[in-house]
């Protein structure tokens, strides 16, 4: 008995010692050591997203006394460069595009997280592919540049469930069934799709998402990876076919509410709203799961709206899941900033957001029962059970392409300023050498 107690004691001491050695900024924070400090943060969350973010960190703030000030901007992609290159970065930056972060890592502006966080905990809480996607090359070699927070599943087709059931439509399981459904809706006198790609200075990104989804559905994963790295050209037959596949849907007569030209002038967030007009003006809307924050208020997930995954086009390639997400990087090293970053690696930093809908948590300690509605739970399952997952390609490409020519040329193509041929060649030409 005594022996046992001593052993237990020894083990406890060892564990305590090990924990002490492996400094943990978070426990210091919970001990109240950083009370009264402020951590500034910049990112693209505005409106509803900003409210949900603030809600999700509220408990942390009151427990630690650290105030997290999030400054959201719709011009985030442009404004963050001004701040970082001007030598006045916020403490933490929330990038919706790893490609943009990679630019700053390249010039040595971001802090290597593996040196400041408790990496044992971080590694235990993410699957390898998220860690890989957070590792980027700096001037002195690869660093842990960021950690993944809220993630989105893309290639999700939303529909107004009540009206859909009433009209007697069936959820399509294959591309052919989808085409038949589109024909049926048109025959009934409505437009099948609600599509908008206007997004201020970022106009065109919604078209890049469709391109990625079609790349995953019309060619191999290996080709997708080569394309993202710039090895497979936009002018290749594979990429052209992917763009052509969605073009057939978008440009087909009567397929999109408002017609082809209205796609470029309609804001991506507004475009989804007409699904819920009474009667609906359009029936289907393909967008990441974050779009639910743009839906009219007061809708019940699973009752008023539901989703199906965009079906496979070709059974050989199936329907791999496209994901996007926010990666948080650290630009100023202070103890309280470390604590906040460590906190963001925990599922609980997203708990209330997950509960209120519109977000999926990539962390391992996030519980499935946090998803309070059937729609989010099914999305969470989709992410977990997917045969293959790929990250949003445009967000991984260099900024000049992923936040530049890809958006702009797809916009030019949709608006009819450029032909497909002109557009893909212009994107290829803009790829940094």
């Amino acid at each position, binding site marked *: 008995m005594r022996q046992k107690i001593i052993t237990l004691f020894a083990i406890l001491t060892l564990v305590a010692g090990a924990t002490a050695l492996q400094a943990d900024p978070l426990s210091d924070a919970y001990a109240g050591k950083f009370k009264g400090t402020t951590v500034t943060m910049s990112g693209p969350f505005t409106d509803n997203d900003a409210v949900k973010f603030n809600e999700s960190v509220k408990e942390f703030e009151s427990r630690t006394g650290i105030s997290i000030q999030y400054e959201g901007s719709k011009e985030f992609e442009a404004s963050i460069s001004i701040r970082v290159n001007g030598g006045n970065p916020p403490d933490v930056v929330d990038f919706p595009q790893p490609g943009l972060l990679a630019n700053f890592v390249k010039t040595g502006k971001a802090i290597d997280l593996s040196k400041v966080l408790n990496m044992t905990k971080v590694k235990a809480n993410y699957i390898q592919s998220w860690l890989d996607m957070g590792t980027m090359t700096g001037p002195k070699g690869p660093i842990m540049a960021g950690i993944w927070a809220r993630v989105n599943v893309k290639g999700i087709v939303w529909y107004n469930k009540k009206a859909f059931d009433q009209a007697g439509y069936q959820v399509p399981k294959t591309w052919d069934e989808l085409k038949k459904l589109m024909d049926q809706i048109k025959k009934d006198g409505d437009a099948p799709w609600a599509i908008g790609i206007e997004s201020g200075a970022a106009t065109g990104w919604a078209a890049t998402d469709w391109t990625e989804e079609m790349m995953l559905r019309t060619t191999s994963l290996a080709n997708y990876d080569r394309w993202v790295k710039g090895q497979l050209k936009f002018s290749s037959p594979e990429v052209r076919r992917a763009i052509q596949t969605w073009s057939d849907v978008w440009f087909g007569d009567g397929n999109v*509410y*408002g017609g082809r030209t*209205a796609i470029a002038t309609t804001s991506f967030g507004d475009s989804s709203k007409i699904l819920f007009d009474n009667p609906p*003006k359009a029936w289907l809307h393909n967008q990441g799961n974050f779009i639910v924050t743009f839906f009219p208020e007061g809708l019940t997930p699973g009752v008023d709206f539901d989703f199906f995954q965009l079906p496979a086009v070709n059974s050989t390639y199936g329907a791999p899941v496209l994901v996007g997400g926010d990666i948080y990087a650290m630009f100023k090293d202070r103890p309280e900033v470390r604590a906040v970053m460590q906190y963001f690696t925990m599922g609980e930093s997203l708990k209330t957001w997950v509960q209120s809908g519109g977000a999926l948590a990539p962390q391992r300690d996030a519980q499935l029962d946090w998803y309070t509605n059937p729609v989010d739970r099914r999305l969470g399952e989709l992410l977990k059970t997917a045969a293959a997952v790929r990250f949003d390609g445009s967000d991984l490409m260099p900024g000049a392409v992923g936040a530049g020519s890809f958006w702009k040329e797809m916009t030019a193509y949709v608006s009819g*300023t450029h032909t497909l041929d002109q557009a893909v060649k212009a994107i290829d030409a803009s790829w940094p050498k």
Partner: protein
Amino acid sequence: MAKQHRALGYLGFILLLAATAVVLYGGFALLKTIGGSKILSAAFAVVWGVGSVALLYFVLNMGAERLPRRARAILVPVVFAGPALVLLFWFLVLPTLRTLWLSFFDDTSTRFVFLENYRFAFTDRIMLESFRNNLLWMVFGTLLCVGLGLVIAVLADRSRWEKLYKAIIFMPMAISFVGAGVIWKFIYAYKGEAAGIQEIGLLNALVVALGGKAQAWLLIGGWNNFLLIVIMVWLQTGYAMVILSSAIKAVPAELLEAARMDGASEFRIFFRVIIPVIEGSIVTVTTTIVIFSLKLFDIVRVMTGGNYGTNVIANEFYMEQFTYGQTGRASAIAIVLLVAVVPVMIYNLRQFAERRAFK
């Protein structure tokens, strides 16, 4: 006794100078520590910033005044213009030189590429498109602003309601370019074609009311540039109008009377008398608006983001630097833009000098 007095005076001055330095630096140090409360630090920055600069001028001037007459004549201008020149050098000349330097390097500013970025600036498809658009802005924007401004100034001059007309034309000047962009976004708004669509755009409402078809105005290649130029004209005509109006009012009445006595028609008087007299003002207004349209950025950024063939040089510069991270290219574009503006500016300054605006 007098000597002693003077020595004391110098000592006092040096102490005062030291005190000023303390106020200047101490305020700066204090400002850094305040940080937390934004309102407090802003208020402090204003009071301290204005106050300490005024103090610095006052003290330096006092020192200069004490010097013998000859030294004073040299030092007083230095005291007053010196700090401004130093700041100008620091904030304007140095960055320009650095931009020039960076324009010869690659995107990370480490590898020397010499003229590669300039080759890009003059051959890239989007850059060429931007050059073309800036030319459109320069020619049509300026012509319309100055032309309309002149016509309105002349007509209003003969009207009973001059003040009212001028106030209305001048009012948009109070609106920022971004604000104007938002207003015009609603004017050009397009919702598409389908059953039950209500156009909310003013222009489309007019077109539909007249029996036409709604258009996506900002997507119409070529014409969309002119639709954007209209916004600048709307904003800037007021500026041209007030300057030209005051010039017209300064045309001597005897001159006009003499012309009328000689039997000149009103058109003849306008072209042969008024225009030559106010030529200086026309040139000034024109060059100002030309420079303005060369640097144009906000309207395009807000309305189209440079899409649909409406890009301009300044927006492309911004995209290269802040979205694509291409520092070298962006620097090269900035230098090209600077070089394009400089001749107009020199011409403008010459005009000022001729009219003794600086004497």
